[in-house]
């Protein structure tokens, strides 16, 4: 056997440096590019949004077939001048339905897929570039599939995407009650037009989850710890994220065992859509399906105290329609 070549000190040092560099380079690069401190250094300060007008359109239909929902949505949106006047060509439209749970549509844990499809199609016809997303609680892939919303989006021909953890940015919430800094999904802040499409559901800790609580689906960070002082946090989400239109799915509402483990027994068919611009007013009106007075819900009472919207149904500007 040939004698091994002598390894000189110089070549040993070079080789060692290359190996060490190779080992440490990825972690160094990762630190350099993903510096977690960088995110916290300058949280973006949001403009304090003026409360939107509290006008509501409440429309009730005879059933919840797809054609009926389409007629209901069309007629209600006409009261706002139609989708074509709200969305201009080339606008970046974000639809934020509730797709949080791996649960079929009949259990009313997620927004009605037919409604999502219809609204997405209206937006697309008006010339908007539509994106749909939600930060799910169950497995994202299964929730998107099982809720029927992935297929609905494909039928409407719009873009549906999973949440990308890199796109959360830290923002400073003006006049926050509890969370001064929130991590929010950037695409919803950048969007030209945001449509919040919740489903009205019973919820154990916040009592109800409608449009304000639905915004939890675009908040990043530790979802669980946002449940400490949840009511104050819900008000903060509403302050941080401006929604241009709220289409609340009250076609079927979940009256018990919410938000995720209701069965068809817990589902009540109310065949109603509530459309408005002010999340507090929409939630307050929708809550009348569940409770006697909206002020029983702590986050609505807090929002009213913060002058974010009217919660007394008697004082609201409501247009009731039927199909």
């Amino acid at each position, binding site marked *: 056997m040939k004698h091994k070549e002598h390894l000189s000190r110089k070549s040993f040092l070079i080789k060692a440096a290359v190996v060490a560099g190779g080992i440490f380079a*990825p972690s160094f*690069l*990762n630190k350099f*590019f*993903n510096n977690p401190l960088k995110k916290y250094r300058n949280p973006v300060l949001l403009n304090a949004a003026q409360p939107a007008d509290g006008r509501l359109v409440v429309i009730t239909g005879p059933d919840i077939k797809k054609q009926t929902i389409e007629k209901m949505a069309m007629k209600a949106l006409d009261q706002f001048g139609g989708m074509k006047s709200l969305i201009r060509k080339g606008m970046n439209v974000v639809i934020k339905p509730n797709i949080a*749970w*791996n*649960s*079929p549509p009949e259990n009313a844990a997620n927004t009605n897929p037919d409604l999502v499809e219809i609204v997405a199609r209206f937006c697309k016809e008006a010339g908007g570039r539509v994106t749909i997303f939600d930060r799910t*609680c*169950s*497995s*994202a*892939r*299964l929730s998107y*599939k*099982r809720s029927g919303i992935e297929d609905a989006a494909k039928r409407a021909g719009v873009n549906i995407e*999973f949440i990308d953890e*890199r796109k959360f940015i830290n923002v400073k919430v003006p006049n926050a009650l509890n969370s001064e800094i929130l991590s929010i999904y950037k695409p919803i802040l950048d969007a030209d037009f945001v449509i919040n499409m919740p489903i009205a559901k019973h*919820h*154990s*800790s916040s009592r109800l989850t409608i449009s304000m609580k639905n915004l939890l689906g675009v908040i990043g960070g*530790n*979802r*669980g*710890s946002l*449940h*400490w*002082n*949840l009511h104050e946090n819900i008000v903060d989400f509403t302050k941080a994220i401006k929604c241009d239109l709220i289409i609340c799915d009250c076609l079927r509402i979940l009256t018990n*065992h919410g*938000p*995720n*483990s*209701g*069965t068809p027994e817990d589902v009540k068919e109310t065949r109603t859509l509530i459309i408005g611009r002010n999340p507090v007013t929409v939630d307050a009106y929708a809550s009348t399906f569940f409770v006697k007075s909206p002020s029983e819900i702590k986050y609505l009472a807090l929002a009213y105290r913060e002058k974010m919207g009217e919660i007394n149904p008697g004082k609201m500007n409501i247009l009731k329609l039927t199909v």
Partner: protein
Amino acid sequence: MKSRHWAKIRAITQLVIWCAFIVVIVASRDTTDNTFFSYLPRISPFLGLSISLATRAVADSFLPALVFLVLAVILGRFFCGWICPLGATIDGNDRAIADRVKISSKKKISIKSWKYIVLITAMILSIFGIQLAGSIDPISLSIRSYGTVIFAYLDSLLKLVFNALYYVPLLNIISEFIYSFLKDYLLDYNKTQYYNHLPVFLFFAFILLLSLFARRFWCKALCPLGAIYSLTGKIAFLKRYVDTGKCTNCLACEKNCRMDAIFNKGTGTIEGECIKCFDCLKACKFDAIKFRFSFPYIGKDKNILTSDSTDPYPDIQFTRKKLFSSVAASVIAVSMFKRKPAFAKDHSRLIRPPGALSEQDFINACVRCGQCMKVCPTNGLHPVLFEYGPDAVFTPQLIPRLGFCEKNCNQCSAVCPSGALQLVPLAKKETTVIGTAYIIRDLCIPWSEYTDCLVCEEMCPTNKKSIIFKEESLLNKEGRKVRVKLPYVREDICIGCGACENKCPVQGDAAIQVRTPKKTTIL
């Protein structure tokens, strides 16, 4: 067809089948229907045999293995050279690494009998309920290593690279385009990383590094499936013939043989070792080698060596002495494995996937292929190592803190090849109990700090909620009266899916943990 083309055809076939194997593994990222995946380990007769021995019942789900066994009687040990994904990996590795490291060309014939010891030891251990087979079967081993480890490493490497590129202006336009393509067709939907991944990888790497001693060292010396095929190879119909009139004893074939199956200056063949790779056909410049079918019981066998060489037939027979030593080895192993070491944890935190048989039956029937871990949509199933005794190695466990058992999902039981996980219909998933959640009140926010939290209750997916809360007035630490919603678990309907443990916002160990039921039974 020219005879020297056969080597190329074999190499291409091997590559195509290996690629198909990878495609199947990548395709199992689909989290809604993966039943096709369950057929992959069923082609191994070794697994079928040891499962049958361990469960004392004919493992009829392993019928596809019989097809390969019949083919092996006709074609010899072709499986190793044409189909086996581990064989393909070892061949590729030999080409890349081992051939460059000059290894001694001295043939080691004696190592060839080791694999029979492995086979017999594994069989005896199976009878005693220690399933070593799944850990060392080449099919199971390749699925486990590629599916859980290699793929997860590739996944995290790509994510690291693209996440770094994401923050580089201009370049990220291209990189994000590629990344979205990869996310659509290759990467898993959730992050994949496996607890205990390193030992799985090291075992795989060890097998590849064995090639430093000799080409295809694993196949020659250790592979138990290879041992079965080498037994059938001895009576196979397809045989190698050498025309001694043309052969010049140049040893080109003998040097090229990756299995060291040629002896007697190129004219003799150890039939059980020849994997029909046809490299010798390619190497022979004198066209002296032919592969022909001969039917030993019909007519006369034409394979008569006319060479005057005096080389004896290489001694790889499995002698009585070796049989005894392997039996002795297995007996020692049984006594070692069955005695649980003192550090082995009790099973209170060992949550098996839904549909699992009772613990001992599960260990007997599980083939350790890791397919359940690969398809789990929440990345909640992870391989066990030696924590629960040596006989549970590489079996799946649910670690709820890392990923919970998803409500409308039965993929782990749908892909199980051996019935260790019985298929759970989606309608019955709601009532399939795998454990029970217990609240650790000192960690729990409402119980210890008297403020509302209720994330576990919100997440609980069972119908009618198996976590309930009672609103109570309590004196907090400052002595003020507060109203708190205190969570309780309804043990009668909790199924132990672990959604609560997974989402519990307490740092580190969750304040609600899934265990097997806390009360011990009489038996």
